[in-house]
């Protein structure tokens, strides 16, 4: 085990991995816990991580897999904490911010695996094969998860905006 290598890796990639965790969990506290869980689990076998082609990708896969494995029921998903970026708070929202705020909140309603697939595809731009590795499923499943996730987001978005329009 290389303590020095582990520390160097965390200092170089901790922030980036934290942001990925934030996109998955929706809030900073759970993001740090997810990242901590992942790194604590990997630490005893860090030499294996270092031998991988791209250690950062290895850890990201582990983090995503751990997130997906921490399954929640739809009820728990409903009640979970979902942070809004501070810059999005306030009453005078531009249309762009309003759209992103709605999409971000809807992302929290997706099943974990769909949400992870959307993040891997739309934030990390991972190809199907790499996303499949991270999610522990087949490439066809990744495509299906992304398709379902985006369809759910789109449906929820238009339902929300239609409801807001009817209120106005």
């Amino acid at each position: 085990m290389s303590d020095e290598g582990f520390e160097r890796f965390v200092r170089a990639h901790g922030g980036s991995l934290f942001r990925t965790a934030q996109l998955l969990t929706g809030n900073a506290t759970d993001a740090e816990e997810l990242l901590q869980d992942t790194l604590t689990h990997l630490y005893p076998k860090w030499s294996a991580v270092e031998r991988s082609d791209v250690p950062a990708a290895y850890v990201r896969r582990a983090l995503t897999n751990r997130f997906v494995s921490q399954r929640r029921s739809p009820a728990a998903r409903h009640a979970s904490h979902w942070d809004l970026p501070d810059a999005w708070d306030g009453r005078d929202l531009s249309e762009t911010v309003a759209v992103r705020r709605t999409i971000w909140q809807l992302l929290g309603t997706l099943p974990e695996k769909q949400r992870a697939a959307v993040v891997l595809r739309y934030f990390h731009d991972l190809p199907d094969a790499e996303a499949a590795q991270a999610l522990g499923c087949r490439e066809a499943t990744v495509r299906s998860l992304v398709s379902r996730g985006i369809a759910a987001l789109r449906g929820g978005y238009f339902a929300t905006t239609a409801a807001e329009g009817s209120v106005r």
Partner: protein
Amino acid sequence: MTDSDFDGSVRATLADVALQTPVPDGLNERLIANAEAGRTVVTPLHSSRRRVGWTLPLLAAAAVVVVAGGALAVSHLADQGNQPKPPAGSATHIPTAPPRPVDPVPDFRVATVSFRDPQHGVALGVGNCGGPAAASCKVTLIATDDGGASWHVLGVPPGLRSMLNPDDPSCGTNGGVLGPCVDRVLFADSADGYLFGLHEFYSTSDGGQTWHHAPAPPADSSGVPTINNVPTMVAAQGYAYRMFAAHESSAGGAGRLQRAPIGTNDWTDISPADAGIYTSFLAASGPALYLEAGIYAGHENAQLYRSTDHGDHWQQVGPKNASLANSLSNLLVAPDGAVALTTIHCTTYVAADGISFSEHNLPGGCHRTGAYVAGIASGTELTVVAHPGPGNDRHLQLYHSSDGGASYQPVASNDPPGSQLTTAIQMNGDFGYVATSPYRVDVTFDGGRTWQARSF
């Protein structure tokens, strides 16, 4: 907005959130120190926000809402004397240590808690840790017979892995199962209980002294494993129901709904034809059984299926002109057969007869994740949880209706619903509970007006 525009908005949203997410002060040093010490728990980052430090494994505890929905119903039904209870099958019975009192369980950290009535509840988690690392903790099942005032240990099958142990991430990892791993519990009565999780299923008929390891259902005809998503169980009127959702099939949801008389492992498939079980909702009370399914089986909308004979026959019911797809937040059945649905758009649908739904919206608009029905005592009495308003994202509020959802009144309460309610809440008339931290559950005996903390 075109599909392409929407895709672009999703990309921009994720990038914007990532850019605007500040990295907490001292994050890297904390990560390094905790990892080197074998610790998986971190100090909450934003205590000033009155945010409960709720760990990811604990969030799974909210599954109890589904489990308890049926379990609560059991209390009304288990004593009706009509439980079919054939002899146990040819199971392998695994002896475990007899129950012993504890007060409290050292280091107990809950993953799932459920009550079948105001006095009787169970909690599954880890405890008796041999060291600071989570890997040293043991899977622990505890029970209370006095509303959480005291807890005693029930036996568990030997060799169970902990869902809170970072070295055993098997609960939920498709294809990565390392060993027997459970993360859910349901007790239909003091003797008959179930421990279950991805790829694993155990049952007991003697209060946990021995456990029957029931093999996982086989793959379906297309070879798709039928257990690779969140398993759900409910129990009512002498029957246990288990639903194993599957989402690996290109044809859509290929899960199964099965039934067995409580106390047996005689599981039979009662899935509605073409239901397409994916991340479905399941609720039961008396002979009534409701299943929300179909969204991934080629249907545009999810369908609500209703059975009044324990799942032998099904009919499609549900609110007309309502899209439940990706919007249903919870489904509950009352002891009198009334059913209530809520959505993330804060719409409630209530059917006193289980068929004719009335549609209502919570007052004050819909905020964050919408409404969630936490309890239904009858076709007129129900309790819904929702965020009270904009700028109050971290609070949840109980709302009570006495007219079938036509109007709601906020329940004035002390904590936890006002400020700390985070997950797992179940109301059954005046009794309710909510898990607010890994180390305690709050209970109410007056409909949510006052709450009492119970430690494990």
